[in-house]
């Protein structure tokens, strides 16, 4: 395929130019074309697409999503989850191990990889559990998990509360050169909280937990990471106070990285009142699609997240795509399963809330969705850039295309989005994994007719 006149952004190489690019299996190349490629174009053997106004970048990397396989295939499968990822512009996703059973043994890592190979349409990198059975006590055999292909370890969904367990896990992971990903919510402070503690939770009568529930565990684990000289990655940072802790740790040269979710960058606890801001239609009070861990927080926290993302205190955007079945959410708020189906809306939401509002620019957003997460997965070479090694993983974006979120059109089985009816500005046109178009063939065909 020859894409003409698109803006090519590759943060890894500092590229940001408008030009033509040639994409084929194993090839991603700016002009000039080889004689052979020219011949293919001339003979109409390759697609020529009008890329005016479009952006081409390396495919996005998601450090954090839930594909639910094995065990909860009614919520999502590797097939549907990777299709959703492709629609979201992600060419690589890390699958969290809180499946049933949890991915705590090499055989299960191999199962995920096998299913991904058979049914997945984007790259799937398995994350193994930190503890056996995700029980939070005995460290799993991390070496074996790594040998089988785990790229990181996490008990995500629950924190590792026991500090000694955490310390042991960090020491082992350091020797494997792999990150420990901690879900930072201190269960003792959290209690049965289902919302951010503040005036909104008080008004709605929902049990709230303060940002301190996250900050206290983050502080502890940053110290343990310093003690063990291990790589600690903080999952779904949501509280402004945590930003200060990460910044201080980084300033001291500690190996601490962090990710933030689109919903913590764009949604506040006021959404729980049905208030989705002036640009979007009113939502419903107690929308269980907003039930998520950690909770959507105050406007001040949300602002702090955006600034931290811009300044690099937070390394990556990750989706925490957490698909659920209808019945998991069709209950009172406090009984709803936590999680947002967000992989298909991530780019559009962040374009709308961060880029078009001028908080960060487009190259920065792409940075935080490509080499940002890739830097956390240093053990996996070639991620987040136009790598010849992997074959080109590419996403084609339309920064200005407007579309309205309708969960019935999701590829994901999880229709649990709080964004229903919201119009986003910024869309994924096509996604290419290893030179193969896995999403957007029709859109490219349409552009071919226009531009051909």
């Amino acid at each position, binding site marked *: 395929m020859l894409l003409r006149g698109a803006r090519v952004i590759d943060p890894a190489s500092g590229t940001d130019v408008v030009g033509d690019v040639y994409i084929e299996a194993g090839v991603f190349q700016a002009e000039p074309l080889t004689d052979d490629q020219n011949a293919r174009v001339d003979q109409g053997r390759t697609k020529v697409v009008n890329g005016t106004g479009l952006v081409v970048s390396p495919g996005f990397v998601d450090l954090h999503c839930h594909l639910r396989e094995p065990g909860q295939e009614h919520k999502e499968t590797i097939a549907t989850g990777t299709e959703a990822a492709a629609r979201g512009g992600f060419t690589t996703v890390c699958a969290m191990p809180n499946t049933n059973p949890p991915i705590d043994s090499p055989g299960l890592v191999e199962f995920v990889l096998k299913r991904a190979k058979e049914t997945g349409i984007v790259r799937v990198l398995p994350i193994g559990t930190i503890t056996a059975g995700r029980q939070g006590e005995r460290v799993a055999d991390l070496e074996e998990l790594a040998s089988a292909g785990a790229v990181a370890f996490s008990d995500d969904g629950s924190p590792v509360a026991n500090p000694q367990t955490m310390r042991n896990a960090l020491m082992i992971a350091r020797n494997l050169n792999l990150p420990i990903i901690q879900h930072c919510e201190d269960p003792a402070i959290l209690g049965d909280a289902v919302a951010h*503690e503040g*005036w909104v*939770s008080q*008004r709605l*009568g929902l049990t709230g937990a303060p940002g301190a529930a996250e900050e206290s565990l983050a502080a502890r684990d940053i110290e343990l990471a310093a003690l063990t000289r291990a790589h600690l990655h903080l999952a779904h940072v949501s509280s402004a106070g945590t930003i200060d802790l990460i910044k201080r740790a980084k300033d001291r040269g500690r190996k601490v990285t962090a990710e933030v979710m689109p919903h913590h960058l764009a949604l506040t606890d006021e959404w729980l009142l049905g208030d989705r801001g002036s640009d979007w239609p009113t939502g419903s009070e*107690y929308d269980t699609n907003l039930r998520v861990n950690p909770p959507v927080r105050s406007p001040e926290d949300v602002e702090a997240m955006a600034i931290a993302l811009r300044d690099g205190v937070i390394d990556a955007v990750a989706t925490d795509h957490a698909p659920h079945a209808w019945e998991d959410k069709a*209950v*009172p*708020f406090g009984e709803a399963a936590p999680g947002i189906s967000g992989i298909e809306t991530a780019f559009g939401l962040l374009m709308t809330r961060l880029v078009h509002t001028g908080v960060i620019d487009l190259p920065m957003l792409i940075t935080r969705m490509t080499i940002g997460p890739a830097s956390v997965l240093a053990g996996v070479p070639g991620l987040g850039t136009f790598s010849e090694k992997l074959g080109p993983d590419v996403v084609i974006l339309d920064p200005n295309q407007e579309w309205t979120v309708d969960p019935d059109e999701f590829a994901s089985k999880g229709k649990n989005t709080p964004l229903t009816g919201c119009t986003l500005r910024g869309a994924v046109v096509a996604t290419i994994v290893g030179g193969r178009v896995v999403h957007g063939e029709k859109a490219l065909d349409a552009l071919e007719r226009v531009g051909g």
Partner: protein
Amino acid sequence: MASTTRTTSAPRKDEETTPRPATVVARDEEHQAQRTWRRRDLLDVDVLSADEIEIVMETADAMQEILSRQIPKAPTLRGRTVATIFYEASTRTRASFEWAVKALSGDVVNLAPSTSSVTKGESLIDTVRTLQSMGAGSIVLRHPESGAAAVAARHANVPVINAGDGRHAHPTQALLDLYTMRAHWRGDERDPIRGRKVAVVGDVLHSRVARSNAWALTAMGADVVFCGPPTLTPDEITEGFRHAGRTVTVVNDVDMALDGADAVIALRLQSERQIQGLLPSLRSYVRGYQIDAERLGRAKSDVLLMHPGPINEGVEVTPEVAAGPRSVVQEQVQHGIAVRMAVLYLTMTGQSEVGPAA
């Protein structure tokens, strides 16, 4: 229920006369438009305007009149069935609703799913739909989760009346408390609640009564003081009322809270708060916050002492005060029936300024 064969000397027309409270108050056409009840559900007081609350109050007046008759019954809901679903134990509120339905000649079906069986397969939505299919004309719901009534209402096509959801709201309690205050303060004043100071004392954090009362009172122009131990009176709770047009404050000193108060609402204290570490001991609560005669003496001399019940005598209030001259607890119980009749009437037959379908 047929009244024509009765041999009592009460005027028969009483039973055939259905009150038209939603209209009697309208003074002019413009006003009438505002004074129309258009809500299908009653989920909380926070959405109600002062005019809407006044409609409930005046409708409750009419219901009080019915209840004072020799045969305290009206045919308003004849042939209609109200389903009550109580996922949380309550004898009083449910009995009050049941009484209210029966006074309006309706039928009641009571459902009390055990709280322990709130598991998958017995969902709230399913229960609501089932009762609706059976022909429920409205659903009265109590549930331990905040927002449960909103969920039910979203999936129901009949009126849903919130009889208490978690910590969130208990609108009929707030309305009956307001009605009780109004009954005492009405006098010659047009605006009996405006400018009053009401102290709400106790476990504010976990109290749907405190929240709904604050909405009702501020809507009618009163100021509210929340008072209790710091662990049970979070400052953020007042922030939600910042647009209420009246002040809602937290004061941890009970003498300050009661100083000059027109009414004091003592909240029920659950003994589990002690286990949760929110209270060092029951004794410390009594020492700091129990309403006794001396503390009540700081309030206005004609202060109303209220309690949503059931009272833990010797904890929230002394037995002496609970049974004393300032206590209106029994009136609250009595007014509860009238107010719930009003709410059932308005939600089930209201929604227009035209009188009820008789």
